């Protein structure tokens, strides 16, 4: 049992991890087809996992509806949306479920274009107000760091709109310099740390040093 729960996953992680690293350097068709084979397995696993995902979603919302928890009406809408979308996908603009899905026409496409896309756009548009409220909180210059942030944000914001150049001609250049030099330097510093972090995490998992993904960590 311990072999199946601990040792086998560690062996699989080591073997697949090493294959993943090696095929990056080997252009031979054998290595490339092995990589494609692994990607196919990944897609197959994802397809099965999608069934689990749908089951989880339905079970969660069914328990909300059954217990009539707060805002259970939204959970009911999940079922309505799921059933309607599935029926439209099966209907497939009249040609049935065994043909490739029809794009740019039919009720399934209509649902996507006129329900999903506007709903997504609505959520995205809310971001503007959230940015404003978050910026307000951040720009209260209580500390020297917040004051620096406030000044640089004002320069960049004003430097990026036409009125910035009207106030002072050099403002767009200063804003661009701030983006190209201090901002880019910080960004690259983070990226270097992230890259090394990825190498370290990958090594820890491949060599079995990191085992918390198996649950708990220590044996």
């Amino acid at each position: 049992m311990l072999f199946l729960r601990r040792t086998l996953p560690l062996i699989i992680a080591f073997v697949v991890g090493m294959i993943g690293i090696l095929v990056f350097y080997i252009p031979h068709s054998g290595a490339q087809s092995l990589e494609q084979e692994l990607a196919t397995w990944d897609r197959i696993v994802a397809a099965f996992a999608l069934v689990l995902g749908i089951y989880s979603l339905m079970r969660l919302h069914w328990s909300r509806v059954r217990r009539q928890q707060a805002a259970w009406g939204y959970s009911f809408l999940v079922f309505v949306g799921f059933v309607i979308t599935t029926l439209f996908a099966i209907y497939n603009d009249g040609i049935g479920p065994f043909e490739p899905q029809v794009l740019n026409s039919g009720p399934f496409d209509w649902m996507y274009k006129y329900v999903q896309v506007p709903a997504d756009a609505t959520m995205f548009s809310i971001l503007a107000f959230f940015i404003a409220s978050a910026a307000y909180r951040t720009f209260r210059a209580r500390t020297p760091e917040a004051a620096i942030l406030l000044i640089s944000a004002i320069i960049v914001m004003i430097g990026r709109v036409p009125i910035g150049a009207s106030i002072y001609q050099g403002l767009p250049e200063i804003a661009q310099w701030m983006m190209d030099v201090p901002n880019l330097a910080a960004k690259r510093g983070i990226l270097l740390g992230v890259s090394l972090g990825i190498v370290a995490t990958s090594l820890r998992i491949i060599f079995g040093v990191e085992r918390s993904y198996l649950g708990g960590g220590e044996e």
Partner: protein
Amino acid sequence: MRYFLCCIILVLCAAQLYAQQPTGVKAEDTPNDSGGSITVVWNRAELPDGTMYKIAVSESETGPFHPAASIDPSGNLQSSDPGTFGHGTETSQMHFAKIAEYDDPVDPSKKIAIENGKTYYVQVIAQLPYDEVFPSAIASTEAYENFFNTLKTNNFVLGTIFSLIILGGIFLAQKRELFIRRIAGLEALDEALGRATEMGKPVLFIHGLHPMGSVSTIAAINVLARVAQRTAEFNTELRVANQDPVVMAVSQEVVKESYLNAGRPDAYSENSVFMVATEQFSYAAALDGMMVRDRPATNIMMGYFYAESLLLAETGASTGAIQIAGTDSYTQLPFFITTCDYTLMGEELYAASAYLSREPKLLGSLKGQDIGKAVLLIVMILGTILTTILGNQTLTHIFTAY
């Protein structure tokens, strides 16, 4: 005298002919590929405007040769492909062409692919305006599959060096205690979980949008394992929201195992790790609703986030929850820093699991990471000095990705 003049004219004609004829023609297998391609190289020459190089391929030395490519003499210099031909000054004096197929002699609209292990004969023809042609000598080669991509040699060497440094750190940690700098966000994790326990409210763990193959998601899963163990010990409700079904399946197993390890398998609920939505903004909308309705005491957001980061974190902040975020997405870091109580920036996300476990071997890898960063800093300073002051680009070339 007449004979002498004729000789001179003949010599000049021959010299002119030679000047137009492509020289130094060599054919070889195209390196760093899985075969099916050969590369032809030849010397650069001064040619009249409107001249084109035609590459012709044959399966026999005696021909017939079939058109394979047409090259403008102003382009295709080896200097434009330093990964394959290097950075030497001679690369600006050599042309190259990679040939993967040639015209079918029966139907020129179709192409015949280069086969591995078959000898091909190649000729470079300088086609001057008014259709004067000057064919080169014939070169031959075979295409074959390569076992190592030499373009990635620098990546391989540097990756090996950094891996050895990190493995060295792990080895060193087993010998003596190492100092690891304090990470405030992780120090506050117990406090945040304790607050949820005191308030009797749940802890909401939110995964980012990347799938299981992403290292940031693996790092988030590692943090989840630690968090689940603590919530099991504190007997606090944990809710794990997922956007990807594979991540959800892995999270379910990890949380279940953590509860088992903590000696509280009974406290694990199947409903605690759930699928929310696969679409980005549906995910954000559903989680915003959960935050507002259920008011979790602690929100933990780990992984790679996009525009939904601020929607989640700002809503969480408005509910008064303690928020700890960790991401390697530098575009979303300002939003998390603004709205969360603690933020794990970039590499701190990867360090989180090791830091929380306090296991010497895992902490050793963090030390290795720090040494790697110090090495990179020294290289950057040296590279800046060499390039800016001395005009030497050696270090820049070593660190260039092809």
